């Protein structure tokens, strides 16, 4: 009643179903309240995004004046063996970490949403590495994997096995970095998965139980299908995160041995800030952006559709 009265008195409202209150200007307030964020967003997101694209068409170092080179940075890129190898190492990391981290997160989520008396402890313990900074995790794991005095090799030696060159052998280095990453971030996926699992109505489990469903059947016929939207979300987030890998590789192996773990972001960083080829670096980052975007959209279209 009061609201109807108020609506009559106020100016015509563009959006229906919302009471207009005298002296209340939604349009003005909406803009005013959005303004601080939009200023920051424009200055540090939109503007650099466009500026970076612009730079990618120039030969640009800080010392001399920029020179327009058209698509040369992009065409050079596709002739650059280091670009391909870095891209391949990034892909390797994505292919290694994505499936394993998803499965680990899911298994952990099952453990912490189950009936175990240890579930509280497990939730804390599995999650805790995630709050540590990447550099701490990477220096710690580099120490664990240190060839002569690291605990991993000390244990192997005491069991009579030989030392493993975790970080200095081309065959193992990427796996070793991945191992540290598993420990560091699996807990994040666990949190997402357990949030998904907790949303499944308990009655479904109860009726399955009454129908005599075995645990394996419950898992494959109830839990997994019903959290498919969480799985898709996890997958998309994980692929994006893995494509953006840099820090742990940079700290643990420095891209070595002999460039065998140099990932694309490291190459982007070195090109831009060690060799000051800013235009080339920007072009490369746009190619990576495009790849990530493409992969995400493809994933969303192929997997995201199914859930509705």
């Amino acid at each position: 009643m009061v609201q109807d009265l108020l609506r009559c008195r106020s100016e015509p409202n563009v959006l229906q179903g919302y009471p207009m209150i005298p002296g209340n200007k939604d349009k003005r307030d909406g803009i005013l309240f959005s303004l601080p964020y939009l200023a920051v967003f424009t200055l540090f997101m939109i503007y650099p995004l466009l500026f970076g694209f612009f730079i990618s068409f120039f030969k640009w170092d800080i010392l001399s004046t920029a020179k327009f080179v058209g698509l040369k940075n992009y065409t050079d890129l596709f002739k650059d063996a280091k670009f391909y190898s870095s891209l391949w190492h990034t892909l390797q990391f994505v292919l290694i970490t994505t499936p394993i981290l998803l499965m680990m997160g899911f298994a952990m989520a099952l453990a912490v949403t189950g009936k175990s008396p240890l579930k509280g402890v497990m939730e804390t313990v599995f999650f805790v590495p995630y709050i540590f900074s990447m550099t701490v995790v990477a220096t710690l794991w580099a120490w664990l994997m240190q060839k002569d005095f690291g605990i991993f090799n000390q244990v192997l030696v005491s069991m009579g096995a030989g030392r493993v060159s975790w970080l200095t052998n081309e065959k193992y280095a990427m796996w070793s970095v991945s191992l540290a990453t598993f420990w560091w971030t699996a807990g994040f996926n666990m949190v997402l998965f357990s949030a998904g699992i907790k949303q499944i109505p308990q009655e479904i489990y109860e009726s399955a139980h009454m129908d005599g469903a075995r645990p394996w059947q419950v898992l494959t016929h109830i839990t997994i299908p019903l959290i498919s939207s969480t799985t898709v979300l996890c997958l998309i987030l994980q692929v994006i995160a893995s494509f953006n890998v840099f820090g742990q590789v940079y700290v643990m192996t420095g891209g070595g041995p002999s460039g065998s773990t140099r990932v694309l972001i490291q190459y982007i960083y070195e090109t831009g800030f060690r060799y000051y080829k800013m235009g080339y670096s920007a072009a490369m980052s746009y190619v990576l952006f495009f790849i990530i975007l493409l992969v995400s959209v493809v994933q969303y279209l192929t997997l995201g559709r199914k859930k509705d």
Partner: protein
Amino acid sequence: MTARIIEVLFILLWVFPLFWLVITSLKNENEVVTKVFSFWPRHSTLDNYRKAFTSTYILNWMINSLIVSTFSMILTIVVDAPIAYAFAKIKFPGRNILFWLVMAGMMVPFQVLIVPLYLQFNSYNLVNTLTAAMLPRIALPIGIFILKQFYEEIPSALEEAAFIDGASRFTVFNKIIIPLGKAALTTVIILSFINAWNDFLWPLIAINDTAKYTITVGIANFQGTHGTQYSLIMAGATIASLPQIAFFLFFRKKIIAGIAMSGIKG
């Protein structure tokens, strides 16, 4: 029973690296760099911590990180909360488009921005300052998302009553929305602080002077400068993790809830 044993095994496996971090930091350097392996420190010592504080820049780095994280946290709240309120409660034209535009910002990988941002800050003469390390990280779309979800749950009747009493939009925001949304705001405060504290790529680029490094860059730099002094490095890494450990001890539930919330409807 077997399930319990496996669980305990995994718990120990997950805790072990952290245990080893602390154990190594308490050992004498000679005891670490030896092939005669010791599990427990023979002579526990805090020497490495003393050395970290006296002979490295770690105190500077901690203070720098504290400054950067605190300011970026405050600024994140200042810009995120009002727009989240606008998205949740104010029906203004273009709202939905704007919301998706802001959320699309989450899709932009930060590395695309590093070259242009560097040139941008270079032209402001801000390279190699803490301001540069802080500013580009204050727009936190996930914060907006979390706050918006929460603010939507606050009954509009409360606001309307205040408006009828003649309160301005800002008063409503300040006196009703902010206090009632305290829980979500705390989550965003924690997430933004940890985010800023853990940031690596950008401070690595924005800052050149060793004394001006943030702690993450400093610790990464440790390995280069202190090569094989593993117990010193581990002491540094432990010091660097103290704020996160403190946050985690006090706000474990909130941190986990914040991450879960960002995943549920995303």
